[in-house]
């Protein structure tokens, strides 16, 4: 079934092969090659790569709804952040009495706020399976309810995009409040370990990197399967002629609702893998600007290709890391400029450029 889904997807096969090679090589170059060798990959780099891979998964999720279904979501950062918070809550409760205040039951920020017991919605997050379930359920449920309300009232286009921005903005404001019980503007941090593995150790970092690569590959294959199915063709039909699709008997609202929810779940998983690697989650992740950035990655990489989204996420974030090191203030301008250039000269993104070559050959 999976191989069949990849049959016509040359870009996808190249991407998955490169991902497999990287996933095999990076751990070897980190663990087995001595630190003074030029071939050595530092643990810092491993973690950076792992972070990029979670961004790539997020970009694939956005491409699924934007590229194939025509929903320009400017709020996918919210689903990413919610998945991240669910993971962060688990990691917080793993700290136990190793925090600054040494309270075995309460995270530091709650002791600081003079709270005496864990709020009800923190219960269960000390168990990994429960947190993992919430990583899927919380973004999924929010997307389902949001989609049910908006798609059913036939909100589309720019209006829908604006509402998704409002959604992530509202969540950002809410999570900034200390009373919400998610650590206010400091967020959740000072994590110690995950499933008993020390988060600072090289082996754990490698493990998280491999997990991110597997999640990206799995998410990619699932999305490829979906867009290659008849449902994927219905999605494209909805994108280009919504009422006509309704007229020939498809339940447009249902199709949108389920694909949107699935995409939000992918974003949540990406967020959950992101947090242990960067070591912090705070309300800044809900910032409307973040969600817009994701869309820019996809636009630069190339819409409606899936692998283009991966490419865009990796290239732009590499550029961001590089530029913020050299000229911290220039980043937003560079990103904006790049977006304008791509929109003007490469409407199909970098992937479109590759495809054009392929057609000519």
């Amino acid at each position, binding site marked *: 079934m999976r191989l069949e889904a990849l049959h016509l997807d040359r870009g996808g096969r190249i991407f998955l092969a490169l991902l497999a090679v990287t996933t095999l090589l990076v751990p070897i170059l980190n663990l087995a090659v001595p630190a003074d060798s030029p071939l050595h990959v530092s643990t810092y780099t491993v973690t950076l790569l792992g972070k990029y891979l979670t961004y790539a998964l997020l970009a694939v999720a956005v491409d699924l709804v934007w590229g194939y279904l025509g929903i320009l979501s400017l709020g996918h950062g919210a689903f990413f952040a919610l998945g991240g918070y669910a993971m962060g809550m688990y990691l917080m409760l793993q700290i136990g009495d190793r925090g600054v205040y040494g309270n075995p039951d309460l995270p530091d920020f709650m002791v600081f706020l003079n709270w005496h017991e864990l709020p009800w919605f923190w219960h269960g997050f000390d168990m990994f399976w429960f947190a993992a379930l919430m990583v899927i359920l919380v973004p999924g449920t929010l997307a389902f309810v949001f989609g049910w309300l908006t798609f059913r009232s036939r909100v589309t286009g720019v209006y829908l995009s604006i509402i998704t921005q409002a959604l992530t903005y509202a969540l950002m404001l809410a999570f900034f409040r200390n009373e919400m019980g998610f650590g206010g503007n400091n967020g959740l941090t000072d994590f110690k370990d995950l499933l008993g593995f020390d988060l600072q150790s090289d082996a754990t970092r490698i493990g998280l990197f491999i997990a991110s690569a597997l999640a990206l590959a799995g998410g990619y294959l699932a999305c490829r399967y979906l867009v290659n*199915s008849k449902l994927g*063709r219905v999605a*494209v*039909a909805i994108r280009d002629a919504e009422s*006509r699709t309704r007229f020939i*008997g*498809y*339940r447009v609202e249902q199709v949108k609702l389920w694909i949107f929810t699935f995409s939000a779940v992918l974003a949540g998983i990406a967020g959950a893998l992101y947090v242990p690697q960067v070591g912090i989650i705070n309300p800044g992740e809900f910032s409307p600007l973040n969600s817009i950035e994701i869309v820019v990655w996809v636009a630069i990489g190339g819409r409606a290709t899936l692998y283009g989204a991966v490419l865009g996420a990796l290239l732009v974030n590499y550029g961001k890391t590089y530029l913020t090191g050299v000229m911290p203030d220039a980043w937003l301008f560079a990103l904006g400029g790049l977006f304008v250039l791509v929109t003007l000269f490469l409407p199909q993104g970098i992937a479109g450029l590759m495809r054009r070559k392929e057609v000519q050959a």
Partner: protein
Amino acid sequence: MKTLDRLRQGLLRNRAWDLTRPDLSLELNTSHGTLLYLEDISVSFDGFRAIDGLNLYIDAGELRCIIGPNGAGKTTMMDIITGKTRPDTGTAWFGQTIDLLRLSEPEIASVGIGRKFQKPSVFEPLTVFENLELAMAADKRVWPTLRARITPEQRTRIEEVLETIGLQEHRTRRAGALSHGQKQWLEIGMLLMQAPHLLLVDEPVAGMTHQEMDRTAELLTSLAGKHSVVVVEHDMDFVRSIANKVTVLHQGRVLAEGTMDEVQNDPRVIEVYLGGEDVHGPMA
């Protein structure tokens, strides 16, 4: 709003309310040889009678052309058959058993009435084959659609339709890359995938080249027999090339009916067409 509308229509129609009428039938029966009965249909828009006591019968398997000057009510008649517009008075039966006025638009589509609008609307980024696949009668809910695989029978069906509409060679082409005429045929093909008994085709050859018109004429005549086809068209050469029976509509009623020659020599028809109302040229 919708309920209010329903209520209003229920009050307007000079017959009992839907709820009080039992046994809704969806089983087509044409044992008397007639597929569509429109009797005494009238509809007004803000006091203007677009359809005025219209009577029209379409036989099973027949190809009927409907002509008439602009504003004669041809499109409105199709709106009534497909449930888009509800008449103020009259009855509309599909076969002897199905009361069209009691069905919603999707229900009417599912009992076997397909309609092609004037502007071709195919799914441009999808291939010709995929367009037909999406239009095919099937379980169209989300999960079955995700899991759907084309069965050999379905493939045969798609191939048949491809052959009927003459687009076999173009099956893997993007629909957006087709010519205007080919898009029209593809859309007729998409209707055929839903296996309709009655096809309503509004102005199919507008904007077509002469070769395309000839192909369309062939296509529509080949459909008759298996399906009943009702064609609304202004182009008289085209109508002449396909029609054995022509109905002339004027001011919402049937003015004349018969072979092309009969209606063309009918003094009332000449009067209407030469009275200066027609912008599409004389009939001769």
